[in-house]
């Protein structure tokens, strides 16, 4: 299981960004997680609760957006969602395809932070 070490990476990046923005606390971290990222959602949520202890993120929640795998089919000339990652073929016409256009994401999209002082903007 490498999700704990992934969680520590995530918390490092998020707390640094929050600090730079002058946040007093973080309420939530929004993450995009591809089906082909190699990271297991539940294990990551478990690791997150451990990794945030004693950081600016303590008490925050991890909001995970599942990102489906999208493949390009040269026959249909179209990108479609792969229903099953055990079979890499076009869901429309059945042509085998390994041309992955989406689904490997492991990306922090945004943070919901608290400002110490009233925001001006």
């Amino acid at each position, binding site marked *: 299981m490498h999700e704990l070490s992934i969680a520590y990476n995530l918390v490092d990046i998020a707390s640094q960004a929050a600090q730079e923005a002058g946040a007093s606390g973080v309420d939530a971290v929004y993450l995009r997680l591809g089906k082909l990222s190699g990271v297991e959602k539940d294990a990551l949520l478990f690791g997150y609760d451990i990794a945030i202890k004693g950081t600016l993120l303590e008490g925050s929640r991890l909001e995970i957006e599942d990102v489906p795998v999208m493949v390009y089919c040269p026959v249909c000339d179209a990108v479609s969602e792969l229903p099953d*990652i*055990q079979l*890499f073929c076009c869901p429309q016409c059945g042509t085998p395809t390994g041309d992955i256009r989406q689904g490997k994401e*492991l990306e*922090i999209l*945004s943070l919901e932070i608290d*400002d110490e*002082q009233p925001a001006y903007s």
Partner: protein
Amino acid sequence: MNNPRILEIRRGVLEKNDLLAQQLRTRFNEAGVYVVNLVSSPGAGKTALLEVMLRHLRESGLNAGALVGDLATDNDAKRLARSGAPAHQIETGGNCHLEADMISDHLAEWGIDLSDFDYLFIENVGNLVCPASYDLGEHLRAVMLSVTEGEDKPLKYPTMFNSSDVALITKIDIAEAVEFDRKAAYTNIQAIRPGMVTFETSAKTGRGVDAWLSYLAERREALHTAAPEAESS
């Protein structure tokens, strides 16, 4: 008073590893060394096959080295050193996979000159899950599947098989004894990664090793043709 607001950051969680891997790849290109990351479950025969590969390459007058990752012990590096090729152990201390910083740290510790090498093999920790997420700066990722493991391994570990470039079926010398279903194995590999090049190998009899090494030689040649500046430096 607290004023919640959204801070957009859009950053990859593994950005540090990916950046370091990219720097390693540039270094490998400049040194003209072709780097292969070998992944498999524990016991698929990575070390045994690698030992034979290193011996074959050495006999062909090529220089190959091996960086070998394990949770603990330096047994595998000792085994690989029997081939006469330089080998260096990375003990991960419980970490279930290799990361790019371990590669760069251990290359420094090992103290080899990369430009003396034609090939560098990185034997990852035996694990079909975690190593899939970490780019080590390799040119090629080869996943091994032994005939004793069950033909449905690619379906059980799609991320690893999909992230690999080549599949190596190992221990093919005992395929019949364990009733290995070759057709099912190929079907499953192709389902996960259409067009994946697959070699059948045996560390014991040497079967398939030359074909696999010839393939590597072609890939290495193609890399040098694609990046001629790497040759001149």
